[in-house]
């Protein structure tokens, strides 16, 4: 099948009104609600208080944000956005279309805030707000939008569903309808500095552990510094890179090492991601402030954000506007590495080390549409890999499809929805796997790295999901690494050769062979046992292991490379027959 054909078929979606009603986020708990920077009730307000509070908040939202006011006003319901939404493609629920979801808010806006809505009601699509609308429609459907902004690309007016969703969520927050997952994650940032809630000692321990791992594989002392008092560069990883996506962290550390950067991470701001983006401006600003304060404290001239999509939007589009002016410059790690590669500052790159992978790239939504970051990702991959194939152009760059788990939806109770939302991305990956034998899905975003492996498994697509700096780390050779590797390889080969040179015996027919390899060949030929399973048939000849061991003659202290040589010597010099050799020769140990 041609690339793009399976995608085309995907757009034939059967309409299933109400299909999305099954998916709902667990409500927050008081201990999470009370630590939010946004002032929200600890539990849902009683019904009679809900509507007036919500309307006041909605009125504020439209007055404080041009986008909200405009996007409530100018939609013509042409439907161009309908098939651009992955949750619609997955569920078929018309309320899961950008227009359908936005209309949930618009109909209330019209009824309460417009002349035509007040005069003509449902004739102009107006409906007064009720607690049921908030609980059963808004709370469900505004958490079935991942704020990926794909719809905006295709809308004739650029209407951005994410702006409507964010406003809708802020209204929901004001009446105490906030999700547990997002509030819990934010509360962990306020407590421990990162989304996963890794306490300071564990964070530091993990960095040491990764340092040791790099040392073991490369022989190089690569530092992963934490809480240095002064540093030129403050690096913000997605905290998952310290636990599950450690190869990404290793790759980044190797890059910094290679250019001799003066960098550090911070346990106060140990997270690139900013879940405030999914919750409220106030919390987004508060989380960004931790970064700004830390950078100021350590005198960082440059702040670098790790492989994380939403982090990049919160930084690229909001940090300066909310927390500025900033006393530093900031970059994404991919911009940083691309810049180094372009200027030839990462000298020793061996692309062939990534020859085991055929790579395709999932553009994180917030890189591609909100981060001006589509060229650097591709450039870096192509500089460190020989095999790269893009997916169909209808689903890459600014047209990229969400992984299905963004926007604060990466939670267990929404698993079914997440898999449905992952359908478009899975379809696109399947195409490129079939066309080019892709086996590595590069996804430079922590949410992708958590979500996409599940999606690929769900749709039976045999690809590994990983970061871009995982590949950089593999290809980038540090000073001293090659010598270490050569030495290690020589040692390994010697050991292997020694083992292979041992005489072997076939356990099925008792035939004897000079080496294990010969025995394996025999087993394959005569007993139909594949070489991988050779150990089922062949085993080293008894006592043979000793033959390869250096030996010493007990009579004259002469030393020999093998037991055999010693025995020959004993027969010749000391007239001791080979059968009695053990009387004189013994292994050197």
């Amino acid at each position: 099948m041609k690339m793009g054909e399976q995608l085309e078929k995907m757009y034939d979606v059967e309409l299933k009104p109400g299909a999305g009603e099954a998916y709902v986020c667990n409500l927050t708990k008081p201990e999470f609600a009370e630590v939010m920077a946004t002032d929200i009730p600890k539990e849902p307000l009683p019904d009679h208080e809900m509507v007036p509070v919500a309307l006041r908040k909605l009125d504020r939202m439209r007055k404080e944000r041009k986008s909200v006011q405009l996007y409530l006003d100018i939609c013509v319901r042409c439907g161009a956005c309908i098939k651009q939404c992955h949750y619609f493609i997955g569920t078929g629920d018309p309320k899961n279309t950008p227009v359908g979801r936005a209309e949930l808010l618009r109909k209330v806006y019209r009824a309460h805030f417009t002349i035509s809505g007040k005069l003509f009601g449902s004739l102009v699509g107006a409906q007064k707000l009720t607690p049921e609308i908030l609980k059963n429609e808004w709370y469900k459907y505004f958490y079935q939008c991942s704020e990926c902004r794909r719809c905006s690309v295709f809308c004739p007016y650029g209407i951005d569903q994410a702006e409507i969703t964010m406003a809708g969520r802020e209204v929901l927050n004001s009446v105490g309808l906030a999700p547990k997952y997002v509030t819990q994650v934010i509360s962990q940032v306020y407590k421990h500095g990162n989304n996963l809630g890794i306490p300071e000692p564990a964070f530091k321990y993990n960095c040491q552990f990764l340092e040791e791992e790099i040392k073991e594989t490369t022989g190089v002392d690569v530092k992963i510094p934490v809480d240095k008092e002064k540093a030129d560069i403050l690096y913000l990883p997605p905290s998952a890179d310290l636990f599950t996506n450690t190869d990404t962290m290793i790759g980044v550390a190797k890059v910094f090492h290679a250019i001799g950067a003066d960098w550090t991470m911070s346990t106060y701001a140990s997270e690139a991601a900013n879940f405030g983006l999914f919750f409220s401006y106030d919390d987004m600003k508060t989380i960004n402030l931790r970064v700004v304060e830390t950078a100021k404290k350590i005198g960082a001239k440059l702040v670098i954000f790790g492989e994380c999509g939403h982090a990049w939007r919160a930084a690229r589009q909001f940090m300066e506007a909310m927390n500025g002016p900033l006393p530093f410059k900031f970059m994404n790690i991919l911009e940083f590495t691309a810049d180094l590669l372009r200027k030839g500052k990462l000298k020793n790159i061996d692309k062939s080390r990534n020859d085991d992978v055929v790579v395709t790239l999932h553009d994180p939504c917030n890189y591609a549409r909100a981060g001006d970051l589509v060229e650097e990702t591709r450039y870096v991959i192509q500089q460190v890999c020989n095999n790269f194939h893009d997916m169909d152009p209808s689903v890459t760059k600014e047209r990229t499809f969400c992984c299905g788990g963004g926007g604060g939806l990466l939670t267990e109770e929404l698993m079914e929805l997440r898999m449905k939302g992952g359908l478009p991305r899975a379809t696109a990956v399947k195409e490129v796997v079939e066309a080019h034998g892709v086996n590595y899905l590069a996804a430079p975003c922590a949410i992708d790295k958590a979500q996409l492996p599940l999606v690929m498994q769900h749709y039976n697509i045999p690809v590994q999901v990983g970061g871009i700096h995982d590949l950089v780390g593999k290809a980038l050779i540090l000073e001293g690494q090659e010598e270490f590797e050569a030495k290690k390889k020589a040692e390994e080969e010697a050991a292997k050769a020694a083992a292979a040179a041992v005489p072997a015996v076939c356990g099925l027919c008792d035939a004897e062979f000079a080496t294990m390899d010969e025995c394996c060949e025999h087993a394959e030929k005569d007993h139909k046992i594949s070489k991988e399973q050779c150990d089922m048939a062949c085993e080293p000849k008894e006592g043979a292991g000793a033959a390869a061991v250096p030996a010493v003659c007990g009579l004259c202290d002469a030393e020999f490379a093998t037991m055999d040589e010693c025995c020959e010597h004993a027969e010749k010099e000391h007239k001791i027959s080979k059968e009695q050799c053990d009387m004189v020769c013994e292994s050197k140990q």
Partner: protein
Amino acid sequence: MGVLANFVVNVLPYITLVVFVVGVVYRIAVWWSRPSPAPIPVFPGQRSVGDAVVRVLADVLLFRSLFRFSGNRILWLGSWLFHISFGLILLRHLRYFLGAEAVPGWVNALQGIGVAAAVVISVPLLYLLLRRIVHADIKWISTPADYFVLLLILSVVLSGLYAKFFAKPFVVDVKYVIRSLMAFQPVDLDKVYLSTSFLVHFFLVQVLFMYIPFSKVMHFGGVFFSPTRTHYFGGESHTKSQEEV
């Protein structure tokens, strides 16, 4: 008939004008004055003001965003044809407004294509109407107001075509009406020949223009304010080169 016609010709136009102008100015003033807490551009596109201008114009003139998805191409054609025809029809009608004696040359030059547009526009109009009925998803999202505005424009078009081709009013009479209104001079209905179909057309046009400020038709102004398109990727602190640090 006399009283009603007198109202439609001599009174309603001023009401229409006030409602339309005040309404549109108010709506745009609201958008204009709302703050943008942060730049929220959506790629592809804009790294400068110039890029943003190009992007908005490409959408206004060519409906580029609709063209992006292959599944939307018929919609793109239908709506572009509709809007371009609507524009040409509006321009054609300037002959009734401009020039006390002779119509400016460029307006004259537009008459042929303007009339053709008036004939053509029914096709995309019917398409836009039908798709709301035929496609289950579009039907689901449509409100009565969406059908109303299409039917209103369709009736304006049909009454206009009827007035022009079948009732055949005198162009000078229509122009006399418009110029009198522009000069705030009451029109003496006994001195001009105005067909019923013209009066119906004139009335419906005024309904349409009064309806605009209260409706989604305001997208014609809103499209110039959309933050995802008018904002651009800038910022003092972001850099793509570590050497700048």
